[in-house]
């Protein structure tokens, strides 16, 4: 199991950092290889530029500006996002990571005249762990755009058999030490289910009978 965690929070010591640390610890315990990309810490630039759009469809050139990230994405079989939900969605920092790293030839294919095809079929586990200022009710009323971007949008690009996990602490601004501890306990269980028994890969990697 090779896990990539994409983490996006500006403040060290935030509750999201505690979520990240628990996720990393659970993966280590399961014997997984773990890589963490901390977007704020490395000063990632989330802005897709005009120059990058010029080479967007050139599947060799388009990965050059973000080579290290593409390599990490291609290596992993488990992709996990840890972030705070702002305006019902991903922080610009994380949205920009999708814009710049999930390019044609990496995350999807664009065959001439055909519809978009998936490019992340090597990913068999997709996890989304977040905090929301809004209540669960309000988040669902708005349609949970952040969750949908990842668990529906990005999921369409992954393996058909991808196993997913989701956990959110709602009403984060009125959280207490008790609610936060309860959330970490829920996350602990969610991670157990998520890691679970080995996921059978679609097609090619299946062991011979």
């Amino acid at each position, binding site marked *: 199991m090779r896990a990539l965690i994409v983490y996006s929070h500006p403040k060290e010591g935030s509750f999201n950092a505690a979520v990240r640390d628990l996720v990393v610890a659970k993966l280590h315990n399961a014997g997984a290889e773990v890589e963490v990309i901390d977007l704020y810490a490395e000063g990632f630039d989330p802005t897709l530029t005009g120059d990058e*759009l010029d080479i967007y469809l050139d599947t060799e050139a388009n990965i050059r500006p973000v080579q290290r990230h593409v390599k990490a994405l291609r290596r992993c079989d488990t992709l996990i996002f840890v972030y705070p939900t702002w305006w019902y969605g991903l922080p610009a920092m994380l949205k920009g990571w999708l*814009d710049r790293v999930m390019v044609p030839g990496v995350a999807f294919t664009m065959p001439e005249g055909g519809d978009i095809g998936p490019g992340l079929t090597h990913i068999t586990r997709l996890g989304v762990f977040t905090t929301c200022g809004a209540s669960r009710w309000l988040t669902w009323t708005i*349609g949970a*755009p952040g969750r*949908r971007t990842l668990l529906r949008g990005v999921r369409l690009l992954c393996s058909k058999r991808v196993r997913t996990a989701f956990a959110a602490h709602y009403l984060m601004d009125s959280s207490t030490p008790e609610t936060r501890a309860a959330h970490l306990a829920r996350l602990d269980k969610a991670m157990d289910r998520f890691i679970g028994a080995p996921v059978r890969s679609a097609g090619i990697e299946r062991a011979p009978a």
Partner: protein
Amino acid sequence: MRAMVVFSHPVPESFSAALHQKVVKTLSARGWEVDDCDLYAEGFDPVLSCVERRGYHDVGPNLDPVAPYVERLRAAQALVFVFPVWNFGYPAMLKGFFDRCFLPGVSFELVNGKVAPALTHITRLAAVTTYGGTRLRAVMAGDPPRHVVKRAVRFVVNRNAKMRYLALYDMNRAEEAKRAAFLARVGAEMERL
């Protein structure tokens, strides 16, 4: 009447830029005073910083880092977003505009412990956008950008505001005629705004 047009695309020759031009020209011709806010051209920084996150709920000082943008928002009666959909959402540039400028005290307020909209001077709200994939694909992904504009942003402006969400789907395969038709439709809708 003042309209703020928030545009997010880096390439001047793009179809998004053509839509942007159409919106600005049509609104100006109809007598709107247009505040053209081109986020890429203005070099807007979409990253909400650690300092901003710490001071997020401190109403008043929290808007200091983006004061000019807040003033422009507050001066507008119409708000129009023009952007492409990338990877199931708007560009990070535009997401950062929401993260950094739609602050407590700017877009919403706490009144008697309840969240109340604070952009009630905005009576017209529109989005003009293009999707690379098909409508079906957007629906399968839950169409996050449509939800944010039609529900989240809609909630913080005037409750009687007129709302238009204009989208061209399957842009990657759209021929010239389809693009031209969409451009004309955007022009007609802006005439009526």
